[in-house]
């Protein structure tokens, strides 16, 4: 049985915040993809808090890209927040640090995204 991805969501300052934790890899990235797309299809602006993510692979990043593209197409706001060093390394290699709005904290909502 596949392990579950650690996800918690909350409303924070009028924004849907999805807190991710643990290792996002091929075993769990389909859970992430499904959750993100559900939120976007529900027309919800989304802030992804990556603070607790100790590892993310290309399949996890692909889920973020797909949700970001859908959100953008639907005029929704989508940003990453509190990106740890390891995840940032992956985003930089993929040059996605120039694409995704990335916030230093969740308290400011989308203020600077």
């Amino acid at each position, binding site marked *: 049985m596949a392990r579950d991805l650690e996800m918690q969501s909350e409303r924070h300052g009028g924004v849907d915040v999805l807190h991710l934790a643990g290792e996002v*890899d*091929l075993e769990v990235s389909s859970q992430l993809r499904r959750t993100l797309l559900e939120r976007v299809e529900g027309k919800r602006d989304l802030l992804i808090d990556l603070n607790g993510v100790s590892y993310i*692979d290309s399949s996890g990043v692909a889920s973020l*890209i797909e949700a970001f593209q859908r959100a953008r197409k639907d005029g929704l706001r989508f940003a990453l927040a509190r990106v740890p060093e390891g995840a940032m390394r*992956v985003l930089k*290699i993929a040059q996605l640090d120039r694409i995704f709005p990335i916030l230093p904290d969740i308290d400011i909502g989308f203020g600077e995204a």
Partner: protein
Amino acid sequence: MTGGRDVVRSGDSESDEMVCELRVHALPARLRLIRRVVGEAARELDCSPGVVEGLVSAVDEACQNIIRYAYKGDPKGVILLRIERAGDNAVIRLIDYAEPVDPAGIQPRPLDELRPGGLGTHLIQAAADSVEFEPPTQGAGNILKLVKRIE
């Protein structure tokens, strides 16, 4: 062949030291174990934290490719991971027993194209000094060799 019983080779002729070998089924659920083994082995080789992180990522991505594209999700497929030290280099081989792939068909997507997928090859190339497919020896389908200078 997916069983992987044949010994591919007992070690690199240029190898100074065999650090570890791991044989697992090609399952997403085994990727965590593979990452931990690579991380520990790279630390044993005195790789810096940045190099360790890169090698863990590269091997994970390469194993994903084996799971998804070489074995096409066949859970009976076997991956053999071998980590050696050769001089100042860490040498990592990933051996599978699937049908040989065409290396020319494995190309990273241009990074200016924003779409899901195609990033794994970039992560592999970013972490290693050299990445190549070796000619498979008897019984093996594909042998991917990553070399990274220990620093």
